């Protein structure tokens, strides 16, 4: 088996660097075995070939000092590292590096919860801390705080936040709730952002911006530094919580539902990001596709309607929640019922009638910050399911939602895939998640999925929609769509990259940001 090597690096150089790294972290924390160990740093949902993302090695440091030493070594040899926190970013690449041969810098052993402040509602965590870890800590200590987790919840708080991930409680905009971070730059300099830059600071977890330029965002979805610590705000446990679901019978209801949601969202009548979930996403919690349709191509409407009837689901299934004292929740729910009750066929569901339904149960948990993995069950919709997510942003506007939905559905069907998706209404925008699910054991289907995704990127861009996050394979293509003023933004990214990481050792190619020595070949 040939060891994958980074571009321009010889096996001798790699082995020499590895030998030095082993002296820093110990041999037990350097992973070289191609057959088993390094397979766990591949992307099982890739739509091309495993080998395209195969690392040469992985290393798990335990602290900042070890990271500094590792970076000094790889700087000397000019070997790229690819940083992961818990490495669970599946559908976007998981633990795999952008190109073959990188050394994965796996921060899983930096998993301390450094502080949880109940009074002010924040936590300071290292990159290896998962949502489960923080939740369990809070439960053990009996603190009256909620986390806001991704679905599924095994991801890292630092990793998900720095990927611009989102959740399902009122604290669901994770980057908005981030407060302060510590970063190791390529040259080993350790930087604190925000208020922790002042000695003996007591406000690092309280105020985001500090003095001077607020640079935290520079270290998200980028490769300008290695985040080694992050502050995150936590919601105080509210006095009450009322989740609800509304099912809608018609495809075109998406437009009205979205238009009605926006004022409820911006005026904080609905406190979290409501989700408009399509029938197949909901159904896949309970049934597999083959129970309703065994033919090729997308599931026909008649079969979808039968499934909806059997499972008491709508073509669209809308989830939201209100939080707070009883009278306030009652008031808000009255407004919500009056608003959506005007849509013909709209049916309201609550815990008394819906409890026990898998889709309801897991959403109710997510909307109160209880971590779970149930959403992973979606992948049993088809045998051997894998997926990549196409995630364009739109205005929280009915016509935009319908336009995006119809465009994606049409293309998905043309390429032989079901549309499986949901819309999350944020502060002003909508995150549209199209789960492009394919049989990961079929090379033909993987290729078809890959081709579809590439078409969607260009079509969405032509309509004025950019993605909020993406898979390794499409980072360059999507970077190319953020091209206003002759690519001014990515040129700025590259100027920063050249200054902060002149040897190009930190995650080259992440989000289409390449160091100078690799830029022409990307």
């Amino acid at each position, binding site marked *: 088996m040939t060891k994958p090597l980074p571009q321009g690096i010889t096996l001798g150089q790699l082995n020499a660097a590895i030998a030095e790294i082993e002296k820093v972290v110990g041999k037990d924390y350097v992973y070289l075995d191609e057959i088993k160990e390094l397979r766990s740093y591949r992307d099982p949902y890739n739509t091309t070939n495993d080998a395209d993302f195969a690392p040469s090695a992985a290393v798990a440091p335990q602290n900042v000092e070890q990271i500094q030493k590792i970076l000094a070594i790889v700087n000397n040899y000019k070997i790229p590292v690819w940083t992961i926190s818990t490495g669970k970013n599946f559908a976007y690449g998981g633990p795999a590096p952008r190109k073959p041969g990188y050394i994965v810098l796996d921060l899983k052993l930096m998993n301390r919860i450094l502080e949880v402040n109940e009074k002010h509602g924040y936590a300071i965590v290292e990159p290896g801390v998962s949502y489960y870890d923080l939740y369990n800590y809070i439960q053990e200590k009996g603190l009256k705080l909620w986390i806001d987790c991704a679905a*599924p919840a095994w991801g890292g708080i630092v990793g998900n936040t720095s990927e611009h991930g989102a959740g399902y409680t009122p604290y669901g905009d994770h980057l908005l709730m981030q407060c302060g971070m510590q970063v190791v730059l390529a040259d080993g300099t350790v930087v604190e952002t925000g208020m922790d830059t002042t000695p003996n600071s007591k406000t690092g977890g309280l105020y985001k911006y500090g003095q001077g330029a607020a640079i935290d965002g520079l270290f998200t979805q980028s490769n300008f530094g290695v985040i080694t610590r992050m502050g995150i705000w936590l919601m105080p446990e509210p006095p009450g919580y009322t989740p609800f679901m509304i099912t809608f019978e018609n495809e075109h209801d998406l437009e009205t539902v979205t238009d009605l949601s926006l004022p409820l969202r911006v005026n904080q009548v609905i406190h979290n990001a409501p989700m408009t979930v399509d029938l197949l996403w909901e159904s896949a919690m309970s049934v597999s596709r083959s129970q309703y349709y065994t033919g090729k191509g997308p599931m026909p409407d008649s079969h979808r309607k039968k499934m909806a009837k059997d499972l008491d689901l709508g073509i669209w299934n809308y989830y939201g929640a209100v939080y707070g004292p009883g009278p306030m929740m009652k008031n808000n729910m009255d407004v919500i019922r009056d608003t959506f009750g005007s849509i013909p066929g709209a049916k309201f569901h609550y815990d008394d009638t819906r409890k026990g339904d898998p889709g309801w149960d897991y959403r109710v948990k997510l909307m109160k910050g209880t971590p779970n993995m149930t959403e992973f069950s979606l992948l049993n919709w088809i045998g051997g399911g894998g997926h990549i997510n196409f995630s364009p942003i739109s205005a929280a506007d009915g016509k935009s939602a319908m336009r995006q939905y119809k465009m994606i559905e049409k293309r998905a069907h043309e390429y032989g895939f079901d549309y499986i998706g949901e819309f999350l209404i944020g502060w002003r925008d909508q995150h549209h998640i199209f789960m492009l699910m394919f049989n990961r054991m079929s090379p033909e289907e993987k290729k078809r999925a890959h081709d579809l995704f590439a078409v969607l990127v260009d079509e969405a861009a032509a309509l004025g929609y950019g993605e909020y996050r993406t898979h390794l394979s499409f980072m360059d293509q999507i970077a190319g769509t953020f091209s206003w003023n002759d690519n001014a933004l990515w040129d700025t990214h590259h100027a920063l990259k050249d200054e902060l990481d002149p040897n190009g050792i930190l995650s080259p190619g992440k989000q289409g940001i390449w160091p100078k020595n690799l830029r022409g070949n990307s």
Partner: protein
Amino acid sequence: MLSRRTFIKSALATNVALLATPSQALQHALTSSEEVPLLVFADEHSLNSKDFISNVADRQSNIDLDIGEHFELVRAFCKESPMGQISGLTRDSDFFALEQIAKDFGFYTQYSATHLYSGSTLTHEVSSSKDSAELITSSLKNAKEQWPQWLANHMRVLPRGNSQFVTKKTQITLANTDQHDFLVSWSLSSNKHI
């Protein structure tokens, strides 16, 4: 301490009259593996998986819809039994998730197979070491409808070791069962404890 739902030193099922004729080497391995601590998972909703777990001679470790509920069990087992083995016949997504959790403790996939029902056809696709893939595949084929029982009886001799995988496939025709299962059988253990 692990919960009552955990198998440790699980006794072999009484039905050692194998449905597929074992090789002598396989029988020897079966006997010598009795002391390996074993944690077994099954899917609560699948008939085949229930059939599998009912042939394992201890209480069940069943998965409902949230595989996350079993993460602590896996972590505890890996720490307490580094020489142990984790096996199961589960949904694909549950195997995927448990595989990810176990790797942090040096437990890697030593064997996996998919079992797909489509109309009257049952397809087994086995990924395993070169010297075991063919044997396992033909044994599953010979077991016909009782393949879950064969798996239960032979969990302990599923391969362990740091070998490259090969894939073998077999299909059998059964009476139309109206089953839609897509299940994965699998085994995780440490490369360092063989």
